[in-house]
């Protein structure tokens, strides 16, 4: 079925024609109408026999080629001098082939760059960078979002072993206070109380809670609540007016 795959892989009639020109080793600027037409039609026939869907573009091209071929069979009725005034379908075809070939080659060069690019990896941007811009009109399109998403897809996520084997180091209340201070300073806006706990491990929960109490006591943070049972928010700057 290799044959089928090959035929299926042409990117349209121009691609098929370029393939034939290459195979027949003929000059793109001097295409023999009869030969190329016969070859082309036999390809299109094979496509039909293999019950491939033959896009209408292939058939339009077939018609053009047939017209070109029949024209080449007619006696040349033009005068020498008039030659260039005559609309030659071969010239038009050559122009299109040359144009298409240019981009086909450019596509190959782009592919090389694309492949190489998949060998470079980056890391996700830090959580707290650039995230605070919430004012002004939004000038962002769906394509920006898709681009960012693709960038993320290209990142490599490296596999991490099961967490069961990980032993946490002991964290002191002082260390935790320092971390919380930093976190709140970065955040600028009040943070949800729950957000201050990075880990679900019991030891750390306790240490974090003690650290929050200590920071409150030292008047470094403020806790806000809109009403009974509402969410607790924490913000820094209790001691600076």
């Amino acid at each position: 079925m290799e044959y089928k795959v090959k035929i299926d892989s042409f990117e349209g009639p121009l691609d098929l024609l370029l393939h034939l020109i290459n195979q027949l080793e003929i000059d793109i600027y001097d295409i023999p109408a009869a030969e190329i037409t016969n070859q082309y039609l036999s390809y299109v026939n094979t496509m039909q026999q293999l019950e491939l869907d033959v896009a209408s573009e292939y058939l339009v091209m077939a018609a053009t080629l047939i017209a070109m071929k029949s024209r080449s069979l007619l006696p040349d009725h033009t005068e020498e001098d008039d030659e260039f005034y005559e609309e030659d379908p071969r010239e038009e075809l050559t122009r299109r082939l040359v144009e298409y070939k240019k981009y086909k080659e450019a596509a190959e060069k782009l592919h090389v760059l694309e492949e190489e690019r998949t060998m470079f990896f980056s890391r996700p941007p830090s959580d707290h960078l650039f995230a605070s811009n919430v004012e002004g009109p939004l000038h962002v399109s769906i394509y920006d979002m898709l681009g960012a998403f693709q960038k993320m897809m290209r990142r490599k996520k490296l596999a991490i072993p099961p967490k069961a084997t990980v032993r946490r180091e002991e964290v002191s209340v002082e260390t935790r206070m320092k971390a919380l201070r930093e976190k709140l300073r970065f955040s600028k806006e009040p943070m949800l109380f729950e957000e201050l706990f990075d880990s679900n491990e019991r030891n750390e929960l306790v240490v974090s809670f003690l650290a929050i109490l200590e920071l409150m006591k030292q008047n470094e943070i403020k806790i806000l609540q809109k009403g009974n049972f509402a969410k607790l928010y924490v913000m820094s700057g209790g001691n600076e007016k």
Partner: protein
Amino acid sequence: MTNESIIESLLFAAGDEGLTAGQIAAVLEISVQDVQSLVEKMAELLRKDHSRGVMITLYGAEYRLMTKKENAEFIQKLAEKPSPKTLSQAALETLAIIAYNQPITRIEVEEIRGVKTERPIATLAARGLIEEAGRADAPGRPILYVTTSEFLDVFQLKGLNELPPLSEEEASAQQEADLFFGRFEEALEE
């Protein structure tokens, strides 16, 4: 390339999750002890070199590359400057994940992004692009997020069904050979 170079690549790409000595050893096909002494040497060099901006930390069992504490103020300065785009890549990534997977919890978003996502979510919520929609039936009852009508507005979508498909659809949709096909066959037979 040297083992140091490979270790730097690995730690860099691993991001905030870091890598254990065992994982690095498996990639380099050297012993865990060798990895440990290599990484320690690298960490020491980084500490001493004032032209370098990163350090290696051991957090639990994982080695991580992090920015040096001395440079924290500059990173904060950068964080304070508005992104040249109106939404940062982090926010756009987060938004894409929520848009295509809603409703979704923050933890799930973080699993996909591989990095903490508190601030992007706060930004998107403050922008009115996402909102809370109840809680997931999971431990801790985490908040579920969905996109808002403001999201549709900003991205000029009539509905979520107008989001472009993310994966390249293979050319399976069969193109119909049209009427011309029949006529062409007739012409050939003539």
